């Protein structure tokens, strides 16, 4: 379910970054990350706000009031990484932050989790330093012997499923046939390979349009309409579950 496609390494920065309110990002993450991988740290809106305050996500938004903060596509991927590290690696948040800060400086990028592949263990996050060594983020640059470490570590890309060594992700598929790409509809969920937002389809169907009519209007299948409605219903249900508030957003 957590599928992320990759882009060529030469694409260093997006001109279009995606734009999400923390509650929208949380909705996508709650639905897109398998349940068993978010038991320790569910990516709720409140938790995402906390991660922003800590400087783990969207460091540029940290000084803004909560309601004005937005996340971009890199933050969406970083939030997945943080959730997965807390679950699989059982890493403490302060260690994750230490590793993120170290790699941000070392690699010269603000959001390294969305740009590079890493190796993780229960207590460390490392990346390949050269042919024989890994460098630790938690231990601020300490080197370890690759051949000894790799058997006891996991590769982050195997959880996120973006191609190793291929740079940053291009899109995320939180559910079958639904994708988020930073340059399509401002990063919001669309039917795969289209620019038809799932929220628009949900809005028509919940406004009283028949699914067949919407399918015919957009030139898509009835299955795609149902899939979009189901996904949006799941996002709203998941958000309502963690916030206690029935959330309907555009």
């Amino acid at each position, binding site marked *: 379910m957590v599928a992320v496609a990759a882009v060529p390494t030469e694409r260093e920065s997006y001109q279009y970054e995606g734009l999400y309110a923390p509650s929208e990002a949380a909705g996508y993450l709650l639905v897109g990350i398998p349940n068993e991988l978010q038991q320790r740290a569910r990516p709720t809106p409140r938790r995402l706000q906390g991660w922003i305050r800590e400087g783990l996500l969207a460091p540029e938004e940290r000084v803004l009031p909560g309601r004005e903060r*937005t996340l971009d596509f890199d933050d969406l991927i970083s939030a997945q990484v943080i959730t997965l590290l807390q679950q699989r690696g059982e890493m403490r948040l302060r260690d994750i932050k230490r590793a993120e800060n170290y790699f941000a400086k070392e690699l010269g990028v603000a959001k390294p989790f969305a740009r590079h592949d890493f190796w993780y263990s229960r207590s460390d996050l490392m990346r390949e330093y050269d042919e024989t060594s890994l460098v630790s983020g938690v231990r601020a640059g300490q080197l370890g012997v690759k051949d000894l470490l790799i058997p006891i570590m996991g590769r982050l890309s195997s959880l996120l499923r973006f191609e190793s060594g291929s740079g940053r992700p291009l899109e995320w598929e939180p559910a079958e046939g639904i994708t988020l790409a930073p340059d399509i509809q401002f990063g919001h969920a669309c039917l795969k390979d*289209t620019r*038809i937002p799932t929220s628009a389809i949900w809005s028509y169907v919940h*406004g009283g349009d028949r699914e067949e009519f919407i399918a015919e209007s957009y*030139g898509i299948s009835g299955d795609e309409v149902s899939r979009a409605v189901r996904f949006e219903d799941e996002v709203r249900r998941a958000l309502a579950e963690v916030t206690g508030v029935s959330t309907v957003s555009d």
Partner: protein
Amino acid sequence: MPSLRSPASRPFLIDHQLNPAVAKALREADWNVRTVTELFNVSPQQKITDQEIIPRCAADGLTWVTADIRARAQHRRLLREHLVSVLFVRRPPTGMNSRYELALLANAIRHFDICLEQEKGSVLQCRVGWGLPSPIEVLERIRRD
């Protein structure tokens, strides 16, 4: 000079957050509207990126109608650079059917068309709510010169 009784005079691009069937209905009533798939001559299954839309609107003299206000924040620089007028349509949180959307768009586009005519030489970014009728709120005004 456009009036509230006649269809809008200038061409509009209806983005995919809005129902292509509504665009078709407006066209049948002599409105000059196009959808993204028509403009780029692609099937609904082919994706067009946001950054392709704005320059194309500028090149073809189209006014962009979209339902997502986030476009403004994300594409501020590109919208200014290409001097594209945009109408942001807000969608009610509980859902909106196509029939209502047709009434909303017909009303909003006509008013927006009049605003643009009255402010010739300006590029406008406006927002309209989901009420019927809803006033047009000017978010940004840029002089072409």
